[in-house]
């Protein structure tokens, strides 16, 4: 297996810069997910690592070897494509063993490895079929079989699940995670789906406009986002943002929403920082699960709200609420299903609150 190291990697198409000097190290055996909205450069970056796109600036190392000038075949990598990219004129067996044949693997060894990969992916019964006779999920398994059979030092996944329906996507996501646990292969996975990123990754790279916005564990990205962009990108439904300012009338720093119509004291650990924030504009951020109707913990703020809609999901209810500062979405337990127009006192769990600078979007940390 291998490590991957990107040093100030940049990419331009003509005069358009699409990747802006990315520094990143993926450790041996690690599963790293590139996530971001479409056009953020995540697929381009992956294809640069694969050798399918040239590198305009910077260096890419795989196992400490600079690979900038190496063709894809010399990088010892495997890649699973969004559209499967199975060879339509070859059977499943031939699709899987294509890479082994090119490497002149002996017939017996080739057969053994194809069957082993097919067993792992439960496609042994499909080996004689052609791709056109397979379902989407089966095609994706074949594509993964083609990747694992070669035992490469690095696996690259380019949105491999985005063409599958929701149910199959969940199933294949679990399969990929199981596969990684089994093979412990260094993997880089591109997706625009933050749920995939959160569930699969050891570490997540959040990209936007070709810039690396944040690199961290799923827990970091979710609970300690460095910017409003990252905070708004993770979580489903995403974090709520309300325009806010900080006031300090009696020596206690307060958050003011809606021009002071709602105000509550900042938690004790924010007080020191709060004193320096008076007069600036912020976005107050709170995740749907940190909004409740019953008091939880000590750092709780109460605000008034009116129920707009309740969306029951079975295990929980998503409730859209109108407050003086704007709309909020809350995640309530299944038993809490308020009716539209009902007035509710909301309890915001301030131990999980966030403040972002309104101009720069940067997160503030107490």
């Amino acid at each position, binding site marked *: 297996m291998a490590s991957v190291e990107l040093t100030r990697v940049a990419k331009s198409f003509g005069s358009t810069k699409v990747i802006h000097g990315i520094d990143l190290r993926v450790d041996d055996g690690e599963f790293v997910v590139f996530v971001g909205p479409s056009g953020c450069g995540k697929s381009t970056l992956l*294809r640069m690592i*694969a*050798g*399918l796109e040239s590198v305009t600036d910077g260096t890419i190392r795989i196992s400490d070897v600079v690979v900038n000038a190496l*063709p*894809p*075949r010399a990088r010892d*990598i*495997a*890649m699973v*494509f*969004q*559209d*499967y*990219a*199975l*060879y*339509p*004129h070859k059977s499943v067996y031939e699709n899987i063993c*294509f*890479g082994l044949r*090119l*490497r002149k693997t002996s017939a017996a060894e080739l057969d053994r490895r194809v069957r082993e990969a097919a067993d792992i992916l439960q496609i042994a019964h499909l080996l004689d079929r*052609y*791709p*056109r*006779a*397979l379902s*989407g999920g089966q*095609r994706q398994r074949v594509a993964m079989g*083609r990747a694992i059979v*070669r035992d490469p030092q690095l696996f690259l996944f380019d949105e491999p699940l985005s*063409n599958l329906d929701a149910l199959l996507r969940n199933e294949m996501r679990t399969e990929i995670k199981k596969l990684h646990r089994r093979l412990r292969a260094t993997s880089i996975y591109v997706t625009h789906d933050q749920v995939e990123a959160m569930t699969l990754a050891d570490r997540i790279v959040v990209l936007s406009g070709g810039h690396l916005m944040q690199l961290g564990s799923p827990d970091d990205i979710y609970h300690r986002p460095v910017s409003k962009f990252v905070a708004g990108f993770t979580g489903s439904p995403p974090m709520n943002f309300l325009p806010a300012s900080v006031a300090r009338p009696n020596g206690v720093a307060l958050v003011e929403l809606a021009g002071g119509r709602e105000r509550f004291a900042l938690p004790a650990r924010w007080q020191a920082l709060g004193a320096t924030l008076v007069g600036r504009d912020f976005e107050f951020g709170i995740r749907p699960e940190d909004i409740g109707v019953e008091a939880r913990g000590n750092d709780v703020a109460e605000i008034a709200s009116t129920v707009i809609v309740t969306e029951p999901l079975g295990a929980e209810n998503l409730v859209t609420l109108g407050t003086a500062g704007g709309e909020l979405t809350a995640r309530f337990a299944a038993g809490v299903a308020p009716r539209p127009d009902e007035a509710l006192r909301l309890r915001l769990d301030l131990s999980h609150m966030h403040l972002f600078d309104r101009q720069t979007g940067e997160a503030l940390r107490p």
Partner: protein
Amino acid sequence: MRRNELFTAGRLRLIAAAVVVVNGFFPAVWILLTSVKPELELVRKPITYLPHEFTLDNYVQVFRQQPLGLYLANSVIVASASTVVTLLVSACAAYAIARLRLRHRDLILSAIIASSTFPLVTLLVPIFQTMRAVGLLNTYPALILPYVVLSLPVCTLVLVSFFQSIPRDLENAAMIDGATRFGAMWRIVVPLAAPGVFTAGILAFVNSWDEFLLALSLNSAARMRTLPVGIALYQGEFTFPWHIIAAALVVAIVPIAVLIALFQERVVGGLTTGGMKG
């Protein structure tokens, strides 16, 4: 009312199709019928459509009067060689245009299209002089080289559109699997573009097979004549032996018909379905 309209539209389509088929096949069928009638029956009035007296004597005569076998062999060699060379060159050119990030790609494509619009007559003298200068007159390359040049533009255009229809990620997958760019083209793109390759091949072959002007001018020696030139020689100064010419034409048509029938079977659509999503 609506049913009637549909009925009429269907009929019109049928009539249109019949016109196309009759127009295309009548001359060929007429030549075939002529080739199995004795000479006297051709000038008999009233006209006999189906032969009253069936004979294969014309086919014996056609090989006796002229070395038709030699002309046939010359045509096969020239047309096959020019087809193979045309396919190799046009496949590479088309791949480059369809796939690589070429500077002035559109300009190159326009130049290729423009080059196919020159009338052959204007090219005849320069080609003749060139061939004489390099000492190739009355050789196979004298015809193979210009035939390749003449077929290249249309074959390249056909292949460009076929190559463009093949998803790029198939080649990317092959290159990651261990193929070179040329290997990916050869093992993945060309087999998948088979319908296009066969179409281009048939175009190149028929172009070369039918060509008369260059064949007459560049290879005038008897041993180097191709079929179109050879068949023209059955015509005497005062005679026009239609029955013999018809038999010769049938001999000339058969290889093309066999070729097309053979390749048509291989020009199977939908070969690329299933490899990619959707």
